């Protein structure tokens, strides 16, 4: 079953078992044994220490408790496989190779909170994957494996569409706009029905824990960050890929497994609302407790490798410009603030007369924009810009004083950004 011609070869095949050909339901069931569990399922989930793999890293068991305690009969489990991060491919890869593990996990979550419906959300642009998951659902129906009503929905695949409130809003109103909410624990709803939204990878881990137990889950990873995680690695390497790694694996080792440039300038970690990490920290373990002191997080499992020839300012500019375009433009500070950050980064990259002023404006505008959107989209961009200004402070100073690096004019880019083609026609419905 394992072959070596696949590019998404993993070092730690748990979730990605069957990476060569998608697993059918019967293959899946023979590969992942059911082990009788001692304690309760929720207890196992607690003991596993699983945290959400969509970016926020919230403990899954806590979220389940909140929903479980919620009264009302019709609850929904939403599997979030929107994957709006352009550099992320993990949820798509996972659903392609092992849809039944994800669906099992979703069913476990549904039984834990007492939900009677599962909705898998996949970006509309990814028609093939949606079809694939629909086939897997049909297979479960045929084999009478389905425990709750399940369906696939395809909201438009924009960056903020994967944000929890935006997803929930789309499910009720067919508009992917993030919603403002007061800062307190909050149960999302679709037409009066409480919703538990979990990332596809998180669901797969839940499926695994339900089958093999918390102890087996914790046998890999660190104490504070147990288990494995999927990372999407791209940039200075031959081929972008998805790897499953034990949390706590040193970054250098991940680069080696991926066949990436062993001597990069920096890494972009977490996603496009994440942060830069300069190459002196390559021996840091890939786990939040180790990354936090150096100002980074695992976030949505994105690693972009920036080679020494690359221009960090140019890369940051491209990402921020794209993120600005992805703003849902509902909130002033986001709709006006993000494009102005992108403009200043362009001036800085060019290193002309006004570059020094642009740098000053960048710093002050970051402070003005932070925390003032309805969702965290602008905060992510601010974090990213700040980390660029900090990590690459020498390059930034060069640019500001009119000496942009050679790489800034080069056509070779490392951070993947989709073409800005929907500038005019924003699709929200």
């Amino acid at each position: 079953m394992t072959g070596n011609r696949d590019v998404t070869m993993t070092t730690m095949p748990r979730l990605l078992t069957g990476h060569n050909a998608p697993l059918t339901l019967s293959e899946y069931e023979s590969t992942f044994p059911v082990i009788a569990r001692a304690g309760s399922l929720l207890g196992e989930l607690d003991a596993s220490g699983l945290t959400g793999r969509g970016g926020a890293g919230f403990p899954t068991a806590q979220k389940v408790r909140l929903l479980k305690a919620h009264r009302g009969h019709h609850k929904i489990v939403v599997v979030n496989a929107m994957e709006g991060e352009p550099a992320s491919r993990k949820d798509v890869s996972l659903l392609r190779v092992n849809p039944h593990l994800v669906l099992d996990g979703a069913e476990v979550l549904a039984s834990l909170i007492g939900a009677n419906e599962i909705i898998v959300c996949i970006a509309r642009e990814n028609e093939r994957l949606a079809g694939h998951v629909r086939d897997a659902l049909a297979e479960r129906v045929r084999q009478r494996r389905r425990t709750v009503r399940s369906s696939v929905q395809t909201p438009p695949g924009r960056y903020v569409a994967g944000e929890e409130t935006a997803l929930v809003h789309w499910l009720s109103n067919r508009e992917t706009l993030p919603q403002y909410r007061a800062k307190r624990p909050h149960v999302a709803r679709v037409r009066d029905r409480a919703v538990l939204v979990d990332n596809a990878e998180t669901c797969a881990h839940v499926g695994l824990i339900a089958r093999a137990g918390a102890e087996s889950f914790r046998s890999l990873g660190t104490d504070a960050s147990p288990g494995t995680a999927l990372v999407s690695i791209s940039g200075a390497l031959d081929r972008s890929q998805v790897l499953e790694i034990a949390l706590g694996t040193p970054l250098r080792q991940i680069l080696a497994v991926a066949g990436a440039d062993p001597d990069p300038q920096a890494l972009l970690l977490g996603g496009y609302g994440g942060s830069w990490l300069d190459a002196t920290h390559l021996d840091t373990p890939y786990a939040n407790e180790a990354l936090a002191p150096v100002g980074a997080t695992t976030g949505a499992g994105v690693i972009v490798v920036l080679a020494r020839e690359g221009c960090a300012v140019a890369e940051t500019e491209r990402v921020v410009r794209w993120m600005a375009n992805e703003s849902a433009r509902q909130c002033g500070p986001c709709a006006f603030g993000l494009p102005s950050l992108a403009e200043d980064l362009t001036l800085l990259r060019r290193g002309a007369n006004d570059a020094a002023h642009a740098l000053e404006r960048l710093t002050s505008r970051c402070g003005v924009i932070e925390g003032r959107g309805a969702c965290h989209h602008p905060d992510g961009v601010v974090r990213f810009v700040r980390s660029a200004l900090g990590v690459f402070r020498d390059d930034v100073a060069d640019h500001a004083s009119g000496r942009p690096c050679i790489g800034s004019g080069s056509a070779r880019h490392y951070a993947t950004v989709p073409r800005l083609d929907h500038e005019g026609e924003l699709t929200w419905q």
Partner: protein
Amino acid sequence: MAVRRRSGVIFLRVDPVLCDGFGHCHELAPELVAIDEWGYPVITTEPIALANDAALASARLAVRGCPRQALRIERVNER
């Protein structure tokens, strides 16, 4: 409206989706609301003591004066 004296603090918060950025609130409560370069309100993040009648009164003025009903007063219990 009588202001009851209670312990605890409140925050003035804006729903950025509703806000249209004409900055009425800044005129009504300049000590609580500044304005950014695009005209949108930047609300002080300092907690307002419930006992501070003057600040509370101007927060209420801003809430009532907001044409989009985007402002609200949120109470946070002190521990």
